[in-house]
């Protein structure tokens, strides 16, 4: 449907979106005025002031730190999940061998790894990255596995009669391209979970810097305007990461899928 929407409709939709955000801010400001207690509900302008005081440290310290944690966790997650998921999806023996391990580890909530993360890695970027890794690895692994498992036999056989008789060629030319939409969906879910894990890991002491860490330290100082500011920054960043991923992957890489879904 998105394709046939006219320019005017899209303009008026943008208008409605903007209006609803402005409305939220107005209601928030009025509510904060009524509460009149910064500890319970800082107002929009207080948060704005907090931002103008701290945007430099957000931009140059907290943001790079959190993105580093995110990158470590996601990179490790992809590095482990893609090969393991592919091997499990392609080789029945690997599936049989690893499935019980995956099924035992997967239901453990990622955040309960925090004590071990600290014991193993100390209060380091790696420790935060490890928690994020634990959150990201299974969605990617499962979606890769499922993508490989759903591969229709006729594509494999077509490739075989066209000369792709080695496993490596079949995986590279058939299984991976077919599974890519499923993998991309898994990565997207993983990034959402990773972002939650990042905030929590930084808050609960795996790290001494980052956006999540700031939320907790400002909470100790009872500076709730800063707490709220960092919450909003985390939300916005999560949104930006998700949107850019969707744009790059779904619009550019997976164009062939357009006619198959919906």
């Amino acid at each position, binding site marked *: 449907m998105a394709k046939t929407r006219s320019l005017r409709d899209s303009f008026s939709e943008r208008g409605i979106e903007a209006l609803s955000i402005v409305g939220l801010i107005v209601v928030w400001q009025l509510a904060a005025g009524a509460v009149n207690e910064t500890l319970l509900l800082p107002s929009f302008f207080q948060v704005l002031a907090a931002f103008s005081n701290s945007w430099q440290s957000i931009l140059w310290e907290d943001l790079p730190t959190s993105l580093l944690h995110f990158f470590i966790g996601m990179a490790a997650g992809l590095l482990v999940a893609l090969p393991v998921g592919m091997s499990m999806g392609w080789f029945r023996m690997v599936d049989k061998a690893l499935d019980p391990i995956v099924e035992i580890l997967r239901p453990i909530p990622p955040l309960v790894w925090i004590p071990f993360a600290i014991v193993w890695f100390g209060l380091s970027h790696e420790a935060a990255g490890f928690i994020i890794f634990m959150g990201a690895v299974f969605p990617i692994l499962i979606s890769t596995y499922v993508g490989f498992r759903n591969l229709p036999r006729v594509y494999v056989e077509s490739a075989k*009669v066209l*000369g792709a008789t080695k496993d490596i060629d079949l995986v590279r030319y058939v299984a991976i391209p077919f599974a890519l939409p499923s993998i991309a969906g898994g990565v997207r879910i993983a990034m959402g979970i990773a972002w939650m894990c990042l905030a929590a890991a930084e808050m609960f002491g795996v790290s001494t810097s980052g956006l999540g860490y700031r939320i907790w330290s400002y909470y100790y100082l009872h500076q709730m305007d800063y707490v709220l500011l960092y919450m909003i920054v985390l939300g916005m960043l999560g949104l930006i990461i998700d949107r850019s991923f969707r744009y790059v992957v779904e619009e550019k890489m997976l164009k062939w899928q357009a*006619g198959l879904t919906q």
Partner: protein
Amino acid sequence: MAIIEVKDVFKLFLADGKEMEALHDINLSIRENEFICFIGPSGCGKTTLLRIIAGLENPTSGAVYLHGEPIKGPGPERGMVFQEYSLFPWRTVLDNVAFGPELKGTPKEERIAKSRQYLKMVGLERFESRYPHELSGGMKQRVAIARALVNDPLALLMDEPFGALDAQTRNTMQSELLRIWGEDKKTVIFVTHSVDEAIYLADRIVIMSARPGRIKDVIDVAFPRPRNRTSPEVNRIRDRILCDLGTEIACIPRS
């Protein structure tokens, strides 16, 4: 001269713990550049036989030989067009056709030129940058034919490639296939349900019967092409095939 030799092929499938004989004692010699059709009721083992020739399935006993060498697995010298749509949905039409050359390591420019040439042969050069989901059923099968032919196979195996098409498109596709076959001489093994299709296309028609799948009769069709679909000679052969297939109520015993 025989290009493909099917010798004493039996195929058993295990279904619900019971053995089911899909092919029983198949012997067949396929000549070079011959257009041969397999016809028979659903479940008589046409697809199974074709898949064994393709190397996608192993016979339970017996063997298939290509130029005297036993077939051990699939290979690009035996192209196949499947009963169901089999184009890679993530590749454009051109990239689908270029798949075989790409695997062989043909340089990019060369494989694109070659693929374009075959797309032109099936009349789809204008659709090269489309994705398969943007094509009609008949167009998809034509791309699949081009994709198989670009590998320059010795034999082209086709499993009811036009089965899903309407009668009109089907007739056009049959003429197109014969034109391509005339240009680019190949051995074609073509599976069909349709007696008319077999008579229009084939040099030789192999009639199979079910449970177990056996070869019941082999009929030479010697008419020159392009063939008339309704001449008295064609009708006589049609009667004989229908009689073999057991769909005719009163069978005139043949001499």
